[in-house]
């Protein structure tokens, strides 16, 4: 008897035929190209001929893999879970292996074999989410993006010399990073190495759940088998971990400790057989191939609930649409004499466009260039195209405006007259074409979706897509490409469909999964095309804009962006808008693809006219521009320990205009090259901090500085009044309280000397941001030397990655980075040489709070639980604290109950610091004073800024966030961006809390009995026990009542305490029409581009808001506080 094991993976089908001792007698492996059942049928039919005898003697069939469940019943096969199968195959073939890493087409698995003291083997397994990127599918896609042939990839060697940032968390994110690296001319091999490293590190940090991959390690799955550079990367990184964690291994034999076995692709199929035969609960025998054949033949689509209406209802419907919306071809006017014009360039992510407009702003010429990677090269080609269309040099280009992703590079290189953010360029363009009656402008480009909301010709709000949204031009393009249809023919094909499958929207990975499934279900190309076109409006209006009712946005919609050339997408959009707003006017920009470039050209026209001269180097010069791009050790930034890998793009024009554009840095210091330049940068930053204060940054620095000097400690001569509490009858009697006076008790001089020798470190994380002055002062007051109280540094990504390798949970970034802070205090040289005695990371359960009538003052459960999670991570395999001779102090503290807090502090520190209860209590009082002093000082500065703003009609920005969002590593330095644009910023702590001052804003509500006092937020939120969330809501209420305050609202990805307040804050600020920029879901990596466009667009709306404010004040002398 033989047993058949089948593995239906996401990209391939495999089988093994085994005898009773699990020896493989036949096997096959082939890609299925989404046709799983037919492929398997073919393989088995072949098997029945090549191994007839064995085939006729197949007893049981076992099947595993992601596509197994549909096929299993047709073969009477028993379904076996994949990981179980692999575990058994490994146990059978490699009894000495202790960990396995398998990367498949769509998923990644890590298996640890552990042995307990009684010799019992246990298995720990973990699998990624189905969409995470550490998988074959992502590697394959990225290989294509960097333009590498698969054979080339399989010959690539790994080198850790030049690695660039690639987000490996999700396939979509990784691809975006890869595309950006390609665009900055990073060589393909460096990109592939960076991807491999990112994947390996992602798996090591997240998927191992903090467990060490112990030798021997087995590497399984397609990518590990076929890509030697990936194998090398694993070997390097795993060996690094072993070194770091003191795992003994033979360095010479690394190749034998981290191995890729033969037949690696058959492990799951073989394991399925071993598993099944061992379970003995499968009594059905192989039934032949008839049922499988029926399954293959009966496949067809159209029955399920995934069917949606087609794009075109009737011929008349299509004709009417085409009549109204076919964009007439552009025939450029041919000038016969010198014509003054202005050049606009939109350096987009997938294509670049250039236009010329004349002095009246009319379009003269447009050219288009698919992006080839380097923005400078793309631009030169664009300019050559312009030149070619104007052989007699009639165009007299008097100015240049740039926008888009490449705008900054071009601005420097060509000395552009205007550099405007894309959103504004699109707005100007739409208004130039359709006037100021436009209510909504929707731009769909290659990668992005931008929707702008207008009121009386002014931009009032905007929504932009993020990396997750997939319904854009590239999606349609790649769909066309997959089916070998030229993108220009897309609409023609899609209009043919009589029905369309209903796709998920929001994520490109899911869309692709859907596409594969729908194909399996038998949908035709036409239907799939129509279905994808219909994703577009859903993605725009339901996912990006999230407006349940489009009518509230207005009546006049303008659609632009290159995607509007695709009539299928356009029709889907128009139909969707019409279905929601029947009387809407939906216009398409006459030059949708060039709308951004036109906006830039118009801006150049405007600024050259206003200024009276142009800075643009001129077309001839620009055409001869040359450039070099470098990313190497010399370009690396050396100004801090992060050592960012930077790219220098140097451009030169014949007349000697040279410019250097620097990309790839993570902070402002990276924008300069020499120490002198850095000095002057810092000096200018300092003077900027004085003229345009950023109180968030200031607060973050001051919180940890020794700014409070404790009073002299009382002596035994000093008498204190004490309430003595006696609990009687073990708690079953009354509690008796008496008051008495007695001398202050002090510890001995010896004990004091002992304390002077101690060093205590505190991680600069989470609620330490609320309490640092208290914690520091408490210790200082007890005689710990000021210089012996150490805080970790601000967060940064490198530091995060260092410590994250021990991570066992995937919580919010502020909590995950806490572990890295502790790691830094344990291992960074700067701290190690200080010889830390105690590492104090208190579990803060309750916080001091000023919001009144609240249900409580609790801190977030993650915040209070994280100290123990960190402790678990660092003591799981070895106790890193005891190895370093450090005591980790993580007991709970309740800052909402001062008496309890005192008791807790003494419990924690009494013996450790050899102090008396009196000393501890007194030090706690000093701590409260320090905290109050800090608050008072920062509030005074806040008051000054607010008063000045009112006097001068300025708009200032208040950051809503949790205390730790003051960490520049967590707020991604957004505040600094606003500062450099001239906006003063306030933290919530800096908002004055004086009753009289606040009565100006809340007085009416208090008098009307809506709230009990100025700090009462029950009118907007009753379930307000979370101190930090309640304070955010209060600050939002304040901003809503102060006419000069705009809001930047930060929230970390996965924040459970912020989530319930999203809608509340949104409504408070929406109703009061307070300008409001939320950056929610902020995470470890800084989404630079996405932050920039939001900040700049928001800054533009703030300028408009300030203008309006001024007019309103002049006319009515009315403050927003009066609107209530």
């Amino acid at each position, binding site marked *: 008897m033989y047993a058949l094991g089948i593995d239906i993976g996401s990209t391939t089908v495999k089988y093994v035929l085994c005898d009773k001792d699990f020896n493989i007698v036949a096997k096959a492996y082939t890609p299925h190209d989404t046709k799983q059942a037919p492929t398997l049928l073919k393989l088995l039919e072949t098997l029945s001929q090549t191994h007839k005898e064995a085939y006729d003697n197949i007893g049981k069939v076992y099947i595993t893999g*992601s596509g197994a469940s549909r096929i299993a019943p047709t073969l009477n096969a028993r379904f076996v*879970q*994949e990981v179980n199968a692999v575990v058994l195959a490994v146990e059978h073939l490699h009894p000495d292996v202790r960990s396995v890493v398998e990367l498949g087409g769509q998923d990644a698995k890590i298996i640890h074999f*552990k042995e*307990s003291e009684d010799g019992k083997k*246990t298995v720990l397994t973990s699998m990624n989410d*189905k*969409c995470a990127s550490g998988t074959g599918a992502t590697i394959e896609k990225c290989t294509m993006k960097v333009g590498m042939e698969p054979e080339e990839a399989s010959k690539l060697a790994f080198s850790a010399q030049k690695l660039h940032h690639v987000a490996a968390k*999700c396939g979509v994110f990784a691809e975006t990073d890869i595309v950006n690296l390609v665009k900055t001319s990073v060589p393909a091999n460096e990109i592939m190495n960076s991807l491999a490293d990112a994947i390996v590190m992602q798996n090591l940090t997240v998927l191992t759940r*903090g467990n060490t991959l112990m030798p021997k390690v087995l590497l399984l799955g397609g990518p590990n088998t076929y890509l030697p550079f990936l194998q090398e990367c694993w070997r390097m990184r795993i060996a690094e971990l072993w070194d770091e964690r003191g795992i003994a291994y033979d360095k010479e034999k690394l190749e034998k400790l981290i191995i890729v076995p033969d037949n690696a692709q058959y492990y799951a199929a073989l394991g399925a057989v071993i*598993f099944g035969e061992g379970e003995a609960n499968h009594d059905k025998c192989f039934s032949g191939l008839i049922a499988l054949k029926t399954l293959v033949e009966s496949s067809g689509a159209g029955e399920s609930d995934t069917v949606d209406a087609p794009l075109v209802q009737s011929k008349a419907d299509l004709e009417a649409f085409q009549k109204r919306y076919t964009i007439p071809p552009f025939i450029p006017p041919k000038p016969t004499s010198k014509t003054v014009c202005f050049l606009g360039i939109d350096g987009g992510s997938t294509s670049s466009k250039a236009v010329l407009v004349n002095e009246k702003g009319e379009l003269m010429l447009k050219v288009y260039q698919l992006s080839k990677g380097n923005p400078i090269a793309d631009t030169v080609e664009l300019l050559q195209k312009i030149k070619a269309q104007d052989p007699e040099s009639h165009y007299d280009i008097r100015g240049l405006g740039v926008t888009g992703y490449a705008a900054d590079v071009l601005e420097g290189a060509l000395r552009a007259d205007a550099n405007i953010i894309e959103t504004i360029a699109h707005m100007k363009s739409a208004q130039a074409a359709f006037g100021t009656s436009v209510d909504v402008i929707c731009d769909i480009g290659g990668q992005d979706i931008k929707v702008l909301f207008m009121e009386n010709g002014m931009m009032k709000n905007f929504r932009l897509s993020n990396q997750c*949204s997939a319904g854009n031009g590239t999606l349609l393009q790649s769909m066309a490409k997959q089916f070998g249809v030229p993108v220009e023919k897309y609409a023609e094909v899609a209009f043919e469909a009589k029905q369309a499958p209903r796709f*998920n929207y*929001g*994520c490109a990975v899911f869309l692709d999964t859907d596409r594969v499934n729908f194909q399996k279900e038998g949908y035709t190309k036409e239907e799939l095309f129509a279905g994808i076109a219909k994703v577009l409006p859903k993605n725009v209006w339901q996912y990006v804009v*999230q407006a349940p009712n489009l009518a*509230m*946005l207005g009546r006049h919609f303008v659609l632009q962006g290159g995607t509007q050339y695709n009539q299928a997408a356009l029709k889907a959009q128009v139909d969707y808008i019409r279905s929601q707003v029947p009387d809407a006017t939906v216009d398409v920009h006459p030059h949708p693809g060039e709308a951004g470039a036109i906006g830039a050209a118009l801006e150049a026209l405007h600024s050259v006219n206003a200024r009276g001269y142009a800075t643009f180097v001129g077309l001839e010069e620009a055409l001869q521009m040359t450039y070099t791009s470098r990313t190497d050790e010399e370009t690396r930034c050396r100004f801090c320990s992060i050592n960012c890998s930077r790219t220098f793009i140097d451009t030169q024009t014949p007349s000697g205009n040279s410019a250097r554009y620097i990309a790839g840095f993570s902070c402002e210091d990276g924008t300069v090259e020499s120490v002198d330049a850095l000095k002057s940068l810092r000096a200018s930053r300092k003077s900027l901090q004085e003229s345009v204060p950023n109180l968030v940054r200031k607060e973050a620095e001051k919180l940890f500085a020794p700014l409070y000097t404790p009073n002299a400690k009382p002596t035994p001569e000093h008498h204190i009044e004490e309430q003595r*509490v006696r*609990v009687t009858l073990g708690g*079953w009697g*009354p*509690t008796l*309280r008496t008051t008495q006076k007695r001398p202050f008790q002090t510890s001995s001089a010896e004990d004091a000397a002992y304390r002077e020798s101690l060093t205590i470190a505190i991680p600069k994380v989470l609620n330490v941001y609320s309490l640092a002055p208290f914690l520091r002062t408490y210790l200082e007051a007890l005689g710990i030397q000021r210089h012996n109280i150490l805080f970790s540094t601000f967060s940064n990504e490198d530091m995060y990655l260092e410590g994250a390798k021990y991570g*066992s*949970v995937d919580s*919010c970034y502020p909590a995950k980075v806490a572990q890295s802070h502790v790691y830094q205090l344990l291992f960074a040289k700067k701290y190690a040489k200080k010889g830390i005695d105690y590492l104090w990371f208190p*579990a803060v*359960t309750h916080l001091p709070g000023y919001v009144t009538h609240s*249900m409580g003052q609790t*801190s*977030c*459960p*993650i915040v*209070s*639980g*994280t100290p123990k*999670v960190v402790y*678990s991570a660092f003591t*799981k395999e070895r106790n890193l604290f005891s190895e370093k001779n450090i005591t980790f102090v993580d007991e*709970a503290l309740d800052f909402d109950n001062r*008496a309890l807090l005192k008791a807790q502090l003494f419990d924690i520190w009494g013996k450790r610091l050899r102090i008396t209860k009196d000393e501890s209590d007194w030090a706690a009082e000093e701590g409260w004073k320090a905290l109050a002093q800090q608050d008072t000082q920062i509030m005074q500065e806040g008051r000054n800024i607010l008063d000045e703003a009112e006097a001068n009609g300025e708009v200032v920005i208040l950051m809503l966030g949790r205390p730790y969002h003051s960490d520049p590593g967590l707020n991604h330095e957004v505040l600094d961006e606003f500062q450099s644009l001239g906006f003063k910023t306030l933290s919530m702590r800096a908002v004055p809390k004086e009753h009289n001052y606040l009565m100006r804003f809340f007085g009416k509500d208090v008098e009307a009995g809506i709230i009990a006092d100025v700090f009462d937020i029950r009118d*907007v939120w009753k379930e307000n*026990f*979370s101190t930090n969330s309640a304070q955010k809501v209060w600050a939002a209420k304040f901003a809503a009542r102060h006419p000069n305050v705009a809001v930047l609202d930060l929230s970390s*990805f*996965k924040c*459970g*305490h912020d*989530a*319930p307040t*999203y*809608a509340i804050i*949104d*409504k*408070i600020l*929406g*109703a009061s*029409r307070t300008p409001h920029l939320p950056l929610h*879901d902020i995470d470890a990596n800084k989404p630079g581009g996405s932050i920039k466009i939001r900040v700049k667009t928001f800054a533009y709306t703030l300028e408009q808001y300030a203008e309006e404010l001024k007019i309103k004040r002049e006319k009515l002398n009315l403050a927003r506080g009066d609107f209530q």
Partner: protein
Amino acid sequence: MSLSCSNIKTPDNNGDLHFLHHTPHQWREGPTEAIGYAPKEETVFLSGGLTLLQDKLIEAALNSLGTTFTALPNPDFKAFQTGKAFGNRGQCNPTYFTVGNLVRYLQHLRDEKGLSTEEIIRKYIYITAGGCGPCRFGMYITEYKKALADAGFEGFRITSFDHEKGIFQGDEIEEQMLDYTPTFFITLAKAVVIGDIINMLGYKIRPYEVEKGTTDAALAQCRAIVANAFLKHTSLIAAMWQCRKVLSAVKLDRLQVKPKVMVMGEFWAAMTEGDGNYNLYRFLEAEGAECIPQPIINRLMLSLWEAEQSNLKQQHLPGENRPAVDFSSLKSRLLIKAGKAAVKTHFTLYAKTIGLHDYDVPDIDKLAELAKAYYTLECSGGEGHLEVAHLIEAVKHNLAHLVISVKPFGCMPSSAVSDGVQSLVTARYPQANFLSIETSGEGAANFYSRVQMALFKAKQAAKEEFEAIRKDENIPAKVNNYLYQPTNDKIGTAAALLQSISVLK
């Protein structure tokens, strides 16, 4: 949108677009105009969200007090989608399930029963257990209100009794509407306790039934008997005795080797019997396992324990304006003691009557002792230290072949804290077969596949355990009677039964 990516980040919304083209004003929560709510006799109280059996028993118990109560249907996937559509983003899925379930029920009243929105708002009140932080559970009411307002039911009343403090959260309803008397709470507690007991027996019996479906039919009968006893104010003890007879009639084959799986984790995800945890219990049983659920009284006992701890900590503290002879701590102590005693007495009484012999009300102090080296006991969010304690207890006292900790995606206390700590616990107890699993963030297929993965090891362990016992030729008939519940160091039911027989001989 697909529901299965935990990485999906929705774009930021800057300002509610509803306010475009409107004049500025200050937003306030709640209806702008006063609503004339219906008098008590016309008012219908809605509740739900526990196990199917408990919801029905609570309905009967509370109706017996002369008010109209209706239990909502079991929240399903459609409820979840409704919850997502009307809720804030970034919530955990119990919120979406329960909030969506209520919205859907009201929509059903409006669209299918033909009630006007005004009538629904006037006549219905939703009553739920609340919390006071620190996890999202305490903010559910915010979510209910937001979703209800967005779904067109602005002004609908939600009220909750806080499990910790007995105070009220949400809308203050007029006092005479609901009599929150001791009788009210005791009746409620009885329904919960009886529900726990019958549920636990159900999980013990069903895996071994000879004829498929007989257990469920018997359980349905028990439910009717107890509900009837509540409504008719007849003896609950007599009802439990009757249930004992009904359950005894289910034919069992208890010598089948099945792994025992303890299911714990986040309260709602571990308790719900439906789409909320992908029907975890039914799935485990179909895969050949016997489940050990966590009764709801665990959560109740934890709350009492937390109150007790807080009292213990406070009683020694000095405080201003407190009397020299202070009885406040004693009062709390007595109340807590009475609460604990009431739960224990009722539980023991009913459990003994129906024949659940091998389960004791958990001793939270003991569990805290097990967990305290790993978990900061003052951190009271979610299930607090219980998850960690249950795992250690299961390993130390041989309670299960597999411990599954199930939680919604992104559950703050469970995913972000307990799981982090469990990684240390499993390192200290490598023999533990432990699976922590989130109920969203991945599709059902992935969820099941992970459970199967862990179950495989559990099955092997159960088989090994069973095979190591000497089998006797003569098996007494009582092994197949559920009332025979021996306790010994064997985990599996079959193994424990055989072991007890051989010991007897």
